[in-house]
Structure formats: C-alpha cells, structure tokens
C-alpha cells in the first residue's frame, strides 16, 4: 500500500494551490518533455521556412557521400547524395506541419459541432451521430487513405482532410460524454432558467470554461497521429516525392543502406519521428492527467 500522504489539493475545486503542487511529478515530466518537443518543432519549422539552415538541403556533394555524424559541417552526416541530413530533417518538418494543423482543425471543428449536437440535443441526433461514429471507425485509416489516393491524386492536403475527418468521431464522443456530465450540473439549469440564449450557454459556459482542456489534449493526439500518417505515407511513396525531403521518404531512401550497415541514413529521421510523436503523446497524456483525471489520487 502507498504510504499516506496528506493530499493538499482537496480543499476545494477552486483551490488556490499552483498546479505543480497538485500533480504527480511524472505528469510534469511528460508535459515538460512534450512542450520541449513542440517548441523544437515549431522553431525548426520557422527555421525551415526562412531557409536559415546549416546547409542547403539540396546541395549535392558527391565527395562526401554517406558521411557519418560528426563530420565537419555536417552535424548528422550526409546521405547517399552528399546532402546534409540535419538540414533535410528541418525542411522535412514542412511536409507535415501545416497539413497536420489542417487535420487537427478539421477534427476539432466538426467534432465539436457533432459532439455538442449529440450531447446537448440528444435523442435522434445522438443515435445518428453514434451510427456515423461507428461507421467511420470501421475503416482502417491507412486503407481509407489509400482508397482516396487511388481515387484522387496523392495530395497531402486531401489526405489530411481524410485524417481529420476520421478523427471527428473520437473528438465528438469525448465532447458528448463531457456534456452529458455537465448537463447534470446546476449551472446549465441556471443558465437556461435565466433565459440565456442557448448559444451562450454552449459556447461560453460549456465549451470554453469546461472543454478547452479536452480540446487541447485532442489537438495533441491528433497532431501526433497526423505526423505518423504523413511519415508512413511518404515512406510508402505517396507523400512528398524526392528530392523534397520528408522524414518518411528519408527513411525509405536509406533502407537499402541500412542493410549494408550504414544506419544513420534511416535512423536519424526515424528517431526524429520517434521523439516527436512521443513528445506529442506524452504532452497529451500529461495534460490529460493534470487537467482531467486523477484529482487527489
């Protein structure tokens, strides 16, 4: 059994304690690491957009092919055409950053609308939305995306729209659950009896005051998934094409050299994918534990 600790946060819902005294250290570590990764990604994205790179990512240096990390001027080594890996990694962020934001935005926007409809109105809306939720959940995401690719052209924005749409059910069911929980609270009843317009009740009281942590968490999870999707697709050959770098197609290009024992061509982008996705996941997890659950555990 755990030793008894005086839980200082249980004085009231609006306890004055700063949040770092109320939570497990583990969650703070998660959130800290996650925020670090997010900052790194955004920073690198800005670097990439303004071309403030250590080296030109397309610059071919045939004399320095497959140089190991630590060669002068190439912090992470070079690939099979002598191009600097670090610069390509930074530029590769552009492949998923904006599309990922699109996917997250679509998921949150439509998810919230459907969730509010299902939760607040209930009844037939709820049944219909449950049906749509189960329907969308029946497809493996990658297969659906391959279908869209086969039917349309392999445009990353179309794909991210699909990714966003497939995340709509998850968001909407979370919001619906939250609204069910909140509907029983008195402030909703009070708002209705005061004659507040429904729009105000929903937008201000329910969504803004109570659901924003949920939405932020869903945003992080959605972004992690969008990154995974984009890298998997470029790995399979459907995303950005050579010579434009994307983390996925860098792993693919380095695959043959991997078998020869030259790991870093594939490993550098793979580790970037790993740490970035881990960062977003842990951020979502940590925020979830801090903001949503585990009060006074």
């Amino acid at each position: 059994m755990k030793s008894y600790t005086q839980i200082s946060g249980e004085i009231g819902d609006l306890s004055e304690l700063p949040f770092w005294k109320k939570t497990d250290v583990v969650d703070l570590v998660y959130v800290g690491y996650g925020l670090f990764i997010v900052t790194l990604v955004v920073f690198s994205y800005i670097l990439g957009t303004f071309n403030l790179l250590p080296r030109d990512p397309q610059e071919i240096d045939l004399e320095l092919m497959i140089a190991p990390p630590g060669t002068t001027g190439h912090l992470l080594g070079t690939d099979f055409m002598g191009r600097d890996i670090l610069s390509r990694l930074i530029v590769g962020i552009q492949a998923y950053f904006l599309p990922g934001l699109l996917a997250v935005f679509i998921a949150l926007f439509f998810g919230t609308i459907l969730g509010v409809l299902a939760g607040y109105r209930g009844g037939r809306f709820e049944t219909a939305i449950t049906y749509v939720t189960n329907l969308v959940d029946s497809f493996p995401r990658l297969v659906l995306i391959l279908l869209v690719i086969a039917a349309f052209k392999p445009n990353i924005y179309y794909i991210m729209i699909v990714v966003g749409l497939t995340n709509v059910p998850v968001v909407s069911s979370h919001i619906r659950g939250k609204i069910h929980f909140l509907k029983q609270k008195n402030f909703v009843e009070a708002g209705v009896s005061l004659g507040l317009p429904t729009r105000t009740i929903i937008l201000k009281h329910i969504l803004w005051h109570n659901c924003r942590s949920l939405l932020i968490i869903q945003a992080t999870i959605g972004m992690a998934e969008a990154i995974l999707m984009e890298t998997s697709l470029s790995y399979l050959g459907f995303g950005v094409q050579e010579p434009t770098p994307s983390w996925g197609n860098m792993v693919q290009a380095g695959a043959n050299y991997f078998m020869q024992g030259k790991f870093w061509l594939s490993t550098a982008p793979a580790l970037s994918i790993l740490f970035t996705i881990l960062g977003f996941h842990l951020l979502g997890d940590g925020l979830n534990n801090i903001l949503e659950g585990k009060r006074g555990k």
Partner: protein
Amino acid sequence: MKLSAIRPIALVLSRELAITALLLLGVSFVVFIILYLSPGDPFSVLLEGQMSTAEARAGLREVLGVPKSWHAQYLSWLTAMLQGNFGTSIRTGLPVLKEVLRVGLNTLVLTIGSMLVTLIIAVPIALYSAARGTNRVSWPLTMFSYVVSALPVFWLGYIVIYFFTHKLGLFPLVLGYSSSAQKFGWLYTLLPIFVLGIGNGTISEVIRYLRDEMGRVMAEDYIRTARAKGASVWKHAYKEGFLIPVTEIIASKIPFILGGAVIVEQVFNWQGMGRMAWQAAQDRDYPVIMGIAIISAVFVRLGSLFQSIVYVAVNPRASKE
C-alpha cells in the same frame, strides 16, 4: 459460461447483426461516394468490370449499358457485390474478391499473431501495475512500452531484419509463407508478426486501459469481500477486469492493426492484403482497393461483434440495456 446465458446472447447477437448489416451498408455507401467523386468516372469502369467478361468482350457493353444515374449505379454495384462480384482488377484482370480473400488469409494470420504478441507483452505489465501500483519495476516497463509504441513501425522492421540477417545469418530468400528452403525459414515468418505486434502502437494503449480497468475492479467492494472470505481474487476479478477490457481494446484497435499491417507487409514483402492495397494505390487500381476497404471494414465489424458477444456471455444482464 452459464447455460442461462444463451438467450441473452441470442438477443444481443441478432441486434448486433442488424446493426452490423446497417453499418456495412453505410461502409459501401462511403466507398461509393469516394469513388463517385473522383475525377475520371471510375464507376463505369467498376461496373463494367463486374459484368462477366464474355458480355464485355462481345461488345454487349453498349447494349446492356452502364446505368447513368448515381442511385442506379449504386444499386447495381451493391447487388453485384452482395453476390460476391467485386469487379475485376484493372492491373491483372483477375476477379477482385477471390484475390483479396486469397491474400487476406495471410493478413489474418499476421493480424491475429500480432494481437497475441501485443497481449503477451502488455498483459503482464498491466496486471503487475494494477496489482502493485506504480513502483520501481512497473514504471520503467510502462515508459519503455510508451517509447516502443511511438517507434515508426517501418524502421523497427528494418532493425529487426538487419539483426536477423546480419547478426544471426538467417537470409530472407523466400518471402511470405512458404519458405522451407532453410532450417530457420519458419522463424522468419514470425518476424513480421513480432514487429507488427510491437510496433503498431497498441501496447501502450492496452497497458494503460487494462491497468486502469483492473485497478478499478480491484478497488471494488466485491473483491474486498472475496479477499475477506479467503476466496481466489482472480476468479472474481478476471471477468470484469481482464476479459472485458481486453476484448474491448482489441476490438477497437483492429483498424489500427490493419493499418500497421499495410506497412509491415511492405517492409517484409509479405503477400497480404495490405501489400495488395499499397500496390493498388500505386497503380490506381480502384476495384482492388475498394474491395480491400470493404473486406477490412467487414473484419473490423466482426471483431466488434465478437466483443459484444463476449460482453454478454460474461455478463448476461448487459443484454437488458
């Protein structure tokens, strides 16, 4: 399973089958819409592919005609599909359903095997964490599983291949199923199962969910009573704390596992449904990819059906909802 559970199971089964049928209808409609909206009218090609080749060859295509309005197209496509005619592949000219089912078997093996691998790894960690709480042993294991779940599965595949071919000298000459060439050929077929089981991201979710549910059950009153009585705790806890959460999380993760199978099959050149889907997307072979999408959806819904049955078999009162 009690004998009295049969009637609730039948009730739930019939209700779930009806819902599944409706959902599969919706699935077909979604696929139809995607294909319909795509430029270049793939639908005529699809419907033509569904007619028997003799008719097409004899040029009867113009006479029989392809229905023009979208609902007529949908209906004729749907009826053909229900009779098992999924059209013919654009690339190979072979009937889609037969081909997909042929390779689907390989994917089934891969998927179910990987689920077992995931469970074998995740369940002990979860049960240990639930029983003992977060301590020095369980926390590093849990963190390790989180990291492993974030690994891009294609890279993990390469590492495993490299390790096994260079370090242990097992050469992947023959791929897929029937590699009988060398002594350890059968071991090589286990590799993709192992990689998919670890790399599809479900380990951390299973651990988290199972640990939470089991932890919740352990804190229930009836467990406390069982302990006080001296009865076996597991016997009372396993239904609600283990069986139901496991089937629930596995059923909900089937789509992800299928998606991961697409990548793993490509890495290991495993002749499965996923690889066929990838090939079809490259060739824009929409009859094939459409067939695969529908078959995967069927598979997912079957998993969901199975989960409902297990839920009711374990707890017959649930059918009253």
